[in-house]
């Protein structure tokens, strides 16, 4: 089977609208969480989120295209463009034929729907722009990227709540490894900051009133974030042939279902996905030096995930550095796996592990090595990026350092 590598990274997030700014914030432990500005949140039980700021869609899209795009598509397309430019790949007809776009999104164009329903039910308007349906569909970002670059290989979108992007990237990885396609533009994007959706989160009572403190004893819940990250994933042979820069090898992918409860996660299910990812990549647990955790900072997730990490690594868990970068870019739902894979890949590239911000106090229930607040220099051999979704659906990617 072919080896698969990442050769391009693109990010739009609350801590930077490109991979360079994104990394600078991660390295500094700078959080993008702050008061919600995109709507009046004064009547909500929470007022903070990790919003994308300084992003002007008119600088990226002409007027005609803007009409077709929900903000979740902005983030997907702009990060895809950055990843493709970063990879230096030049598409010809043969490569376009063998390249696909595989994305994750939990919500699709929720902002478009929210606006439509407000006009319909609250304002009593009977007409709406005819582009609402194609703008709101969850595969819109993938379709736009395929059209912009003329990529005609396997192209689709997975929607598995907070695991969406990891499921997407896992499929892209396997399709390239088995030779179905040669290259994928893959990742995820999400734009959840609209009132109707935030009300749903409010009623679930899992959003923090202040900030996101993963694994910290005083954690108080998750913080929603928006953005996207996309990658150029391709076969090692193709990357070598064109002398591309290689961030890391995508070594393994594992997925599982808890078959337990819609919202209460199970350590066995999480551990199973982690174990399968390592087995798929032929990675021994002792080779892993970093886990980018799902780490939502909810009471339920963090002890569960710590148990899963202990289960997989045993005593070696003491030597596995863990951080949840959601403490900085928020929980971007269907884009989470992608933005966190970007953090993980850049960690290989820079030989620095991003910290877990907002950490105040160790929790005996979370007995793992948390990278508290300050980035840690480390030349890791392998790393994992966890995503565990509502519905008990788990997806884990394993990456390995690429040695020339």
């Amino acid at each position, binding site marked *: 089977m072919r080896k698969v590598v990442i050769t391009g990274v693109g990010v739009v997030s609350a801590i930077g609208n490109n991979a360079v700014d994104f990394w600078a914030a991660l390295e500094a432990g700078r959080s993008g969480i702050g008061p919600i500005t*995109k*709507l*009046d*949140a*004064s*009547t*909500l*039980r929470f007022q903070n989120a990790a919003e994308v700021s300084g992003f002007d869609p008119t600088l990226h899209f002409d007027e005609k295209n803007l009409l077709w795009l929900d*903000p979740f598509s902005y983030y997907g397309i702009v990060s895809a463009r950055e990843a493709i430019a970063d990879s230096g790949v030049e598409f010809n007809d043969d490569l376009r034929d063998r390249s696909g776009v595989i994305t994750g999104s939990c919500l699709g164009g929720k*902002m*478009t729907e*929210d*606006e439509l329903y*407000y006009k319909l039910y*609250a304002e009593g308007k009977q007409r709406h722009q005819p582009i609402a349906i194609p703008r709101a569909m969850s595969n819109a970002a993938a379709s736009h990227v395929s059209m912009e670059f003329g990529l005609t290989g396997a192209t689709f979108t997975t929607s598995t709540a907070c695991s969406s992007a990891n499921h997407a990237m896992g499929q892209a990885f396997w399709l390239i490894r088995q030779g179905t396609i040669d290259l994928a533009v893959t990742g995820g994007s999400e734009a959840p900051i*609209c*009132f*109707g959706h935030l009300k749903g989160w409010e*009623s*679930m*009572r899992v959003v923090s*009133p202040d900030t996101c403190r993963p694994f910290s004893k005083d954690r108080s819940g998750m913080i929603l974030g928006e953005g996207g990250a996309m990658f150029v994933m391709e076969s090692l042979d193709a990357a070598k042939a064109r002398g591309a820069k290689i961030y890391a090898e995508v070594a393994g992918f594992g997925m599982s279902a808890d078959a337990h*409860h*819609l*919202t*209460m996660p199970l350590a066995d299910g999480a551990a199973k996905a982690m174990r399968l990812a390592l087995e798929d990549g032929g990675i021994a647990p002792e080779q892993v030096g970093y886990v980018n955790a799902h780490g939502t900072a909810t009471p*339920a997730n963090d002890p569960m995930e710590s148990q899963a990490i202990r289960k997989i690594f045993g005593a070696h868990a003491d030597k596995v550095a863990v951080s949840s970068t959601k403490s900085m870019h928020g929980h971007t739902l269907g884009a989470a796996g992608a933005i966190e894979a970007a953090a993980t890949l850049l960690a290989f590239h820079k030989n620095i592990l991003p910290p877990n911000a907002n950490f105040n106090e160790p929790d005996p229930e979370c007995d793992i090595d948390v990278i508290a607040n300050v980035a840690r220099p480390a030349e890791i051999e392998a790393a994992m990026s966890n995503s565990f979704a509502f519905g008990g659906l788990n997806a884990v990617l394993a990456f390995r350092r690429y040695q020339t």
Partner: protein
Amino acid sequence: MSEETVAERVIRVFAKFKKMPPEDIKMDTSFEELGLDSLDGLNLIFELEEEFDLMVPDDKVQSMKSVAEVVEGIEWLLANPDQQPMNAAKPTA
């Protein structure tokens, strides 16, 4: 017919939610005894919010784990109506 007390209304909502006779629900009955997990509990609180037309703050929810605690919490919220943010915001997208 005399007016229902808060406790009677709470027990009526509990009974309907659990599809059981109100007589089987006592003031000291806990969520756990009713077999409610955390998500069931949130749904029950939502039914109570609908019944009393109010919103229960997150910190109050933490202290509502039995019929008596729910009654106490609801009575406090009814006495403190300034805790009720109910207006919807207009989307800005």
